[in-house]
């Protein structure tokens, strides 16, 4: 569904990505793992059109979207939940959700999406009038994901949804992510530093290191890889 090939991205003189390629099949959850500064966020920002690659291309549903502006990419059903959530702090929860459906005109469809989002995150329904900036970190993450779902995406990219959230809530959010994938057939690209968790919920994984893919394969297989365990999974014994 999404093919990234040979992406080179730099910030001024700093090379953040030097030839990243991967493919994500329709309906799958695929994860991108890697340490700080590996280039995970840069990869997502390039796919969603916030950054322009120096070289390489992004193909979504057979269409080359490399040069499209960000809003046109969203319009094609590819939605990016950014790192640090980026909810609209001074807008209410309600207005944030409305912004998520910015490109939809059909009121009925918007109402249906709202109900769907409330079904997944009932907490949001209780907080509709609250200013988004005053939500807890976990609630803001729910809002960020809910806002993305309001636009009916076909493909969702999540950048570190577990960042700064209590372990119990992380489990809930990941359950929801899997649930959305199962029930809606939504394809998901999940970026995580929490590799244990990411490999558990995903079908396939790519490991990024200083702007390059250094390892790839089915998640179950990577979970047992001794080298990967040593670097990203705390180095504990297999099992």
């Amino acid at each position, binding site marked *: 569904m999404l093919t990234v090939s040979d992406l080179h991205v730099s910030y001024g003189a700093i090379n953040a990505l030097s030839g990243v390629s991967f493919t994500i099949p329709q309906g799958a959850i695929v994860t991108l793992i890697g340490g700080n500064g590996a280039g995970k966020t840069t990869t997502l920002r390039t796919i*969603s059109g*916030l950054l322009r690659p120096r070289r390489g291309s992004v193909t979504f549903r057979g269409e080359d979207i490399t040069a499209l502006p960000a809003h046109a990419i*969203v319009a094609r059903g590819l*939605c990016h939940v*950014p790192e640090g959530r980026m909810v*609209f702090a*001074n807008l209410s929860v309600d*207005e944030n959700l409305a*912004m998520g459906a*910015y490109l939809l005109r059909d009121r009925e469809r918007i109402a249906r999406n709202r109900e769907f989002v409330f079904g997944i995150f009932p907490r949001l329904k209780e907080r509709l009038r609250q200013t988004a900036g005053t939500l807890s970190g976990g609630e803001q993450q729910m809002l960020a994901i809910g806002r993305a779902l309001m636009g009916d995406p076909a493909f969702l990219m999540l950048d570190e949804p577990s960042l700064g959230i209590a372990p119990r809530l992380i489990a809930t959010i990941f359950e929801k992510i899997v649930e959305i994938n199962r029930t809606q057939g939504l394809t998901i690209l999940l970026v995580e530093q929490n590799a244990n968790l990411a490999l558990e919920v995903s079908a396939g994984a790519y490991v990024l290191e200083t702007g390059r893919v250094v390892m790839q394969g089915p998640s179950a297989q990577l979970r047992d890889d001794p080298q990967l365990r040593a670097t990203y999974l705390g180095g504990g014994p297999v099992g």
Partner: protein
Amino acid sequence: MTEFLQQLLNGLSLGAIYALIALGYTMVYGVLRFINFAHSDVFMIGAFAGYYLGQRVPAGTLAGGLAVMAGAMVICAVLGMAIERLAYRPLRGAPTLNVLITAIGVSLFLQYTGQLIFGATPRTFPQLFPAARLSIGPLSVSSNQLLVIAVALVLMIALQLIVFRTRIGTAMRAVSLNPNAARLVGVNNDVVISFTFGLGSALAAAGGILYAMNYPSIDPLMGVMPGLKAFVAAILGGIGNIPGAALGGLLLGTVETFVGGSAFSTYKDAIAFAILILILLLRPAGLLGRFVAEKV
């Protein structure tokens, strides 16, 4: 007491004009984080548009006056969007200083093009609306003054509705809070920015006509002083804050009028800058503004 009320009314009608101009500064700051110094010259063009359009309608009628005002607002909205498209959009992503200098350039360009086309000699602004002097109790009020307050009030309420109740208004607020997040939900930020310039410039045009009705001589440099004061009003209310700009304008106009009527009347124009300095020292975020730590 009567004199106090009289002055208050004078102050509010001057302040309403400052408020209309200040809204444009503050809205553009909201979405682009820079001060559009050319805004005061759009205000001037608004007054000249009113002057020329005014010759094409019967003078001194309500319908004619409103039609002229609407026409001038449309002309300035288009002008504002053209300025953004030609001068500022190519600089998107450039350092703020570059954009500020460009804005000063656009401002000078409009002033001196104005002198070339309209001439430098002041012209008398026509009486667009029916004129009358009304007595409300002991107060003597000109219909122009009431009109200024009424029109400004209607426009500010309309603006409030647009910004807080419509889809494009919500998008404006979203862009000003987080431009990248707005793009990621599908907002075309360029369209929103263009709309913001159009809206602010239309308000400036209305302000220009209302100003010219009460201080009835117009010239190509007429925007400089009211523009500076409206800028101070926007800072006073908290730059980027829409209700703040309205409040700042009303306050500044009122204070200035009272100072003008007192023993210190020579300092009438200095008062705005005294307020600016005080605000910058005591409450840099303005009356209603809050400084949010910039995210990096």
